[in-house]
């Protein structure tokens, strides 16, 4: 069909080009049509670790070349340091973290009865600081918060993610809605990439399934450790959606859903990712 406003002579190859264009449009329709958001079967779930090159895996596997361990060392020191008006360190109440913190990160975000909502590990640390230590909360995504989170999360390394608290259900559902809802100027949902197209390429990178097994993790791109929320905001910015502030209930709900989605998978923090 020729455009009346921009009449153009028919060139050889135009039909072929049109056929390609139609194919692309149909491809896009299939892409959006495929937004059935079929969940990944439990047995087919894989950590982003498995998509990485051997060099990056080696970096994560060796604690003397994993840069995340630099934060863990800082966190270990913070664990012993007295803070706030109460003059108490984490260790004064919780003792030996290798015992008391074992498995704790694997079941966060956890339901907090007093607040009637789940809190993530960073939130839990700040509750402890403000209520037990009478200290100011640590800045989310700041060096100290990442260090303490990394040290606590290390104590769950190799343990399966737990998500079996019935009280979390409404929050898991709220997180699932965020995960499957198309949003942003690109009108994409998390599920369209991470459920429907994992393993495919996006700008040369392999799309992972998006399981939060390794947070806080060291991203080579960031040249720093970062939390799951930082990663979520990365994705939201990528699809040109507005990210809620750090620590917002929306983020916690999405984290709660993602941990449920990754239930049973092994914790690997501090992970390394490209």
């Amino acid at each position, binding site marked *: 069909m020729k455009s009346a406003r921009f009449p153009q002579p028919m060139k050889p190859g135009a039909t072929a080009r049109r056929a390609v264009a139609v194919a692309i449009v149909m491809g896009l329709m299939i892409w959006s049509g495929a937004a059935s958001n079929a969940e990944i079967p439990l047995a087919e779930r894989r950590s982003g670790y498995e998509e990485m090159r051997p060099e990056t895996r080696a970096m994560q596997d060796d604690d*003397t*070349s994993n840069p995340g361990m630099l934060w863990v060392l800082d966190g270990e020191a913070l664990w012993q340091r007295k803070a706030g008006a109460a003059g108490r360190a984490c260790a004064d109440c919780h003792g030996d973290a290798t015992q008391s913190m074992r498995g704790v990160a694997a079941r966060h975000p956890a339901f907090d009865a007093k607040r009637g909502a789940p809190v993530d590990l960073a939130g839990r640390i700040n509750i402890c600081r403000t209520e037990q230590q009478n200290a100011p909360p640590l800045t989310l995504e700041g060096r100290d918060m990442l260090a303490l989170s990394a040290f606590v999360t290390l104590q769950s390394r190799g343990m399966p993610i737990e998500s079996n608290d019935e009280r979390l259900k409404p929050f898991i559902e709220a997180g699932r809605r965020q995960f499957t809802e198309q949003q942003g100027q690109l009108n994409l949902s998390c599920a369209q990439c991470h459920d429907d197209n994992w393993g495919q390429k996006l700008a040369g990178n392999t799309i992972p399934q998006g399981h939060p097994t390794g947070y806080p993790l060291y991203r080579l791109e960031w*040249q720093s450790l970062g939390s799951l929320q930082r990663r979520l905001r990365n994705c939201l910015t990528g699809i040109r959606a507005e990210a809620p502030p750090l620590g917002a209930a929306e983020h916690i709900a999405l984290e709660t859903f993602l941990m449920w989605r990754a239930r049973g998978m092994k914790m690997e923090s501090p992970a390394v990712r490209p």
Partner: protein
Amino acid sequence: MARALINVPASAKRGEVIAIRTLISHPMESGFRHTSTGERIPRDIITGFVARYNGEEIFRVELFPAIAANPFVTFNTVATESGTIEFEWSGDNGFSATERRNITVE
């Protein structure tokens, strides 16, 4: 003092080639970035790294602004005798860090 992670084998055979891995915590601010208000962020990098085996220099690196944060340096050397390997990093703003590891050579 900056945090450093170092991997030196605790023991080795005489004449054996050993791999040494070092990783140090440092922002490696290139000096080419600007804040949101347009001010230049001053350069703050590690400029030098030296390894000494029982006092003798065995490895040296010069570092430049294009090196990523938390520089990871790995090299090989021959295990000649038991003793101490010393690592020294130096850089902008008087940055200096030193670490030592012992090695037993049989």
